[in-house]
């Protein structure tokens, strides 16, 4: 409409009147956008780091168990019950799912490890080394020797347990474990590797051997496993993926798929906390922007009091006066958005590709059962930038509302007289 066009034109040209001020306001908004998006990206990066660190060492991002396995972890509750499952088939089915990156079978047992004079209680973990590498980083932490191979009596223990037992690679260990048939399994194993995860609980208590070796020790068939650990395509979305996987696997055999949020609830809480922190930070940034923009717009409209009065005297409605001020906010918001996006995306992408590594300054550390990389990592999804863009635009429009209302309320006669 011609009239609407007029008010857009007036708004646009008014912004051009004080270019310096418009530039400053636009830049402030654009920087607000930049900082909001980068803040969100950084906390998302921290969340991702938190999730990955908290899951990749041992637990994986999701786990499949027999539906009655947790929380007791009875050794009899293998997937598929006493008869077990076709493990190869189960793994194949899991890996066929688009959201599953890798799957690794596991068996657990409680037992004793003796070497020389000493004996320690141990958590025996049977793994398929070739698959485990794709799900967890455990095998990447072998500092001496190598991982145990299947089909041979080999075992790997943590650096702390090795210290307590006073043994080293090449020594022989005796493993004793209650077996599924009610007997006590025991056998002699060669210590082929020592791992150092940096997490004392793990380094002191895990004895890792090939899945088939542990099955043999515990008198279990090759089809009996307690767990399949998974990595998924989007760790942050694991709960939804786990649910979909549960339905995908069906109920034969009865299984349960648990996401890391259920396995590590404290980790999930940390992530939720960071998300709400995110929200608050963005809120603060844009609240500051609202007042900044409103301030300049109030000054801008105050300077034009007489012009608004003239427009009113000529027969414009108060609505039209308010409209042109709001249009100014919209144009300002759009300009800021273009500037903000133009300067934010390159920074975001660059940061994502090459996160500054602070290892030289702080070094890694262990917290909450995981090893941490001191890396300022930025993750981005479409959500953060798009929501921030919306917030930016709303900010500009919102900031225009009060000045618009003020402008509409200018009494024409007094303003014309300069009173």
């Amino acid at each position, binding site marked *: *409409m*011609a*009239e609407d066009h*007029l008010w857009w*034109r*007036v708004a646009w*040209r*008014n912004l*051009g*009147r004080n270019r310096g001020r418009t530039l400053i306001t636009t830049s402030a908004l654009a920087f607000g956008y930049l900082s909001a998006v980068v803040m969100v990206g950084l906390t998302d990066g921290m969340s991702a780091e938190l999730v990955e660190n908290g899951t990749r060492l041992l637990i994986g991002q999701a786990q499949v168990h027999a539906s009655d396995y947790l929380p007791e972890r009875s050794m009899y509750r293998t997937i598929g019950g006493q008869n077990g499952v076709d493990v190869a088939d189960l793994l194949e089915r899991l890996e066929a799912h688009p959201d599953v990156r890798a799957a690794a079978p596991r068996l657990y047992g409680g037992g004793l490890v003796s070497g020389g004079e000493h004996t320690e209680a141990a958590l025996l973990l049977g793994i398929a080394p070739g698959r485990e590498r794709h799900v967890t980083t455990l095998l990447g932490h072998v500092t001496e020797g190598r991982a145990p191979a299947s089909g041979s009596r080999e075992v790997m223990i943590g650096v702390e347990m090795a210290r307590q037992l006073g043994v080293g690679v090449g020594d022989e260990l005796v493993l004793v474990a209650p077996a599924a048939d009610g007997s006590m399994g025991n056998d002699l194993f060669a210590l082929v590797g020592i791992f150092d995860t940096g997490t004392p609980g793990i380094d002191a208590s895990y004895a890792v051997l090939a899945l088939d070796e542990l099955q043999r020790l515990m008198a279990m068939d090759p089809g009996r496993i307690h767990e399949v650990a998974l990595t998924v395509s989007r760790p942050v979305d694991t709960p939804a993926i786990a649910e979909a996987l549960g339905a995908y696997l069906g109920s034969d055999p009865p299984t349960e798929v648990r996401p890391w949020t259920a396995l590590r609830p404290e980790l999930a809480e940390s992530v939720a906390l960071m998300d709400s922190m995110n929200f608050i930070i963005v809120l603060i940034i844009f609240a500051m922007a609202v007042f900044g923009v409103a301030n300049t717009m109030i000054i801008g409209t105050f300077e034009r009091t*007489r*012009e608004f009065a*003239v*427009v*009113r*005297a*000529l*027969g*414009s*409605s*108060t609505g*039209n006066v308010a409209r042109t001020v709001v249009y100014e906010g919209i144009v300002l918001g759009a300009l800021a958005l273009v500037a903000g996006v133009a300067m934010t995306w390159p920074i975001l992408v660059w940061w994502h590709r090459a996160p500054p590594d602070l290892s030289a300054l702080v070094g890694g550390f262990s917290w909450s059962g995981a090893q941490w990389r001191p890396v300022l990592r930025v993750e981005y999804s479409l959500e953060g930038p798009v929501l921030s863009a919306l917030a930016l635009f709303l900010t500009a429009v919102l900031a225009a509302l009060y000045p618009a209302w003020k402008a509409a309320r200018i009494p*024409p*006669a007094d303003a*014309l*007289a300069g009173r």
Partner: protein
Amino acid sequence: MIDSSGTAAVRTDDLWKVYPQEPAPVQAVRGLTLEIEHGDFVAMAGPSGSGKTTVLNLIGGLTRPTRGRVWIGGQELGSLDDKKLARLRLERIGFVFQAYNLLPVLSAFENAEFTLLLRGVPHEERRARVEALFKEIGLEGLEDRRPSKLSGGQQQRVAVARAVVGEPALVLADEPTANLDSTTSAALLEVMERLNHEHRTTFVFSTHDPRVMERAHRLIRLVDGRIDEDRRVEPAVPAR
């Protein structure tokens, strides 16, 4: 639109405007009753503070009277809400101000077509009307200039164009020549007279310049918010 059934262009009845002020309220207009005919060319004279601006604002519906009533072409203003009053101003009243008050972000042409745009007049018609008017009052070639690139006299002529382009029944001009030198003042008066003559537009303008008063067809002299003198004037220079 223009009322020809004998109703006056402007009528006021016992009009009062009192500004609540410390220490004492200011009685800017005190019991003003008058009638202005269609097509008249009226000067409202009087010293500064005599109430000229207030009277024009009351007639134009920019201020509400403390007491009394105003009719524009038979329409009583007190019965209209602000929105309807704005509509009435848009359709029936043109304003010219002492300080020109053109919108600085619009060109001369855009300023002149402003009220037509508000009324939704199509582009072609707007252009035709503004162009004809600019030619008539000697603004040809200045269409694209911003007000800051025009002289005072040129700005005020654009303001007059803006006021009359919509062919309002009434044009109110508050000291339109006060910021102009005498030659430019005379030229502007001539433009106003011609528009009054050719379009039968009613003009009411305030002034305290005797040379401007002389050009009016009717002279109303205000003193302290009251009519001190009201007489018809023989134009010294006949309108061309």
